[in-house]
Structure formats: structure tokens, C-alpha cells
């Protein structure tokens, strides 16, 4: 098997994880796809060292996270303007419920509805709430680690995460969610 074929298998094995990391941080599928592409091209440059490395998944997640955070920081002003103009972008075209993989043993319709609502609410959060929530709940980082990484105070991180959780809770309960 050639390097290119092995890389394609590697890419297909890890693409969901890398894409999920990126899309939950940046909130938009098209931007997440760009980040995932860049992540895999970085991986290709180091494929000799990564292909048989059991830590490759963690390396990819770290690179995707850093690229996503850099992307958000680089485009912060533009992003803020658009998010303010859009107000609530829960219906942004980047979200596609078909991207959610099903889980056995659940009422498929009810579960899919709840998952789609939560995923949509997560993406609709402003970046300063969504990013700490993703890093806390998916990446299992502490408040202090997140604050250091985003260069803001621990108090602000706690406040943003709390407000984000309230919005997600409201989305889960199907209430307004205004705060």
C-alpha cells in the first residue's frame, strides 16, 4: 500500500473527530471544513511520524483546536459584526442535522430532535460562550486552563460558561432562552 493510500485510510478514520472538533468551536460547517482540511494537510507533512502513532488522534484534535481558535481570533472583529447583524443564527445554513450520527437504543425521532436542538443551540451561542463550553465539556479542560488559553480571567470564563449553559438548558426545554 502506498503512502497516499495509507494516508487516505488515516484521513477517513479520523475525519469525523477532526471535523466535529472544528465545527463545535467555530460554529460553521464551511469554516470547519477548511480547518479540517488544513489539519489533514499538516498531518500529511508529518505522516511519516504519525501514521503508526497511537497518539495521532490526539495530535489531530490539538491541531484542529488551535487552528479553530486562531481562526476565531483572527476573524473576531468580522465575526462579531456578522453575529450581531444576524442576532440569533440558529438557522444558519451551515448546520445540517443529517451530519448527526444516530445512536442505537433511543427513540430515533425524539432523540434526533433533541440532539439537533442542542447542536443548533450550541452553534447559535456567541463565540465567547461556545468556545469555553466546548473546551470544558468536550475537551475536559479546567476553568483555569481555558482562561489561560483564551487569555481572559477565570471569572469571565465562569460567567460565560454559566450563561451558555443557561441558553443550552433553555433550548433543551424548548423555552425562549432569552437571558
Amino acid at each position, binding site marked *: 500500500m502506498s503512502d497516499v493510500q495509507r494516508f487516505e485510510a488515516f484521513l477517513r478514520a479520523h475525519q469525523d473527530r*477532526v471535523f466535529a472538533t472544528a465545527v463545535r468551536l467555530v460554529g460553521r460547517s464551511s469554516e470547519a471544513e477548511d480547518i*479540517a482540511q488544513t489539519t489533514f494537510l499538516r498531518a*500529511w*507533512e508529518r505522516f511519516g511520524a504519525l501514521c503508526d502513532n497511537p497518539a495521532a488522534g490526539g495530535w489531530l484534535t490539538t491541531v484542529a483546536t488551535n487552528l479553530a481558535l486562531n481562526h476565531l481570533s*483572527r476573524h473576531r472583529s468580522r465575526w462579531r459584526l456578522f453575529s450581531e447583524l444576524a442576532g440569533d443564527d440558529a438557522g444558519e445554513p451551515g448546520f445540517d442535522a443529517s451530519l448527526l*450520527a444516530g445512536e442505537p437504543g433511543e427513540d430515533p425521532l425524539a432523540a434526533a430532535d433533541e440532539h439537533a436542538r442542542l447542536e443548533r443551540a450550541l452553534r447559535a451561542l456567541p463565540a465567547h460562550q461556545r468556545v469555553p463550553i466546548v473546551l470544558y*465539556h468536550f475537551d475536559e479542560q479546567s476553568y483555569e486552563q481555558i482562561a489561560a488559553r483564551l*487569555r481572559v480571567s477565570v471569572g469571565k470564563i465562569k460567567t460565560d460558561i454559566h450563561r451558555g449553559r443557561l441558553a*443550552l438548558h433553555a433550548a*433543551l426545554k424548548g423555552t425562549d432562552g432569552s437571558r
Partner: protein
Amino acid sequence: MDPAEHDLEREIDKALRRLPALRAPQSLAPRVMRVVMATSYAPSETVPAGGWRRWPAAWQMLGLVAACSMAIAFGLALAVGAEWLGSLPAARAAAALWQVFVAPIAGPVLAFTAVMGAAGALLAAALKHVAWEGQEISDT
């Protein structure tokens, strides 16, 4: 932690962890593979990467010998060139002009250039801080 906040954290954590894995769009893999096939990206096996200290010993020795050879050749060329230039009347005239007109101001000009360069770098860093609210995170 406030019990209500604790309950909220647990509830949201549970709900987020139950979210099914997201699938990457079907276009991602073909898109990446197109770039891989179309560009000269290649896993580096012949050219050592990662800095001199990570090169294999043979490459390190080769690099060291090449660097020493270049330094010696440069030193020899400088000595021969200086001797040859010293024998030329035009070069002697240029040296005299240098001593009279350029040498007295060379120091201040160099110092001014260094100060302006440092000021420019400081200004760029300040602009970056204001525009991006901080530095970038290393990608890897």
C-alpha cells in the same frame, strides 16, 4: 459551587456527552486528497526535518563539514580579495573617501536604523495586540 449551578453543569454535561458523533461532510476526504495529489506535498523521508539536532548523525556530520568548508573558503576569498583590492588605485581612492565621508556618520546611521527598526517592531506588536486582542496560538 452553588447546588443549582452544579445541577445545571451536570445536566448540560450529560446532554452534551449524549450528542452523537458528528459526521464530516462527504466532500472533505476528496477535497483533501485532491490537494495531496495535486501538490508536491510528500512525507519527508530523504530530507531530514525538525532542526539540526534532530538530524541523523550522518546528516549532522555532513552539515558540519559543509559549514566548515564554506567558512574556510569565505575566509580565504576575503584575504585574497583584500590583497588584490589593495593593489588597485581606485580601491585606495574609495577607501580614502570612505574614511573621510562615510566612516564618521556610519555609527550614528546604524544606531538610528536600529532604533527605528525596534520602534517599528513595537508598533507592529501593539497594533496586533489591539486588532487581534492577543497573540496567535501555535498550531501544533
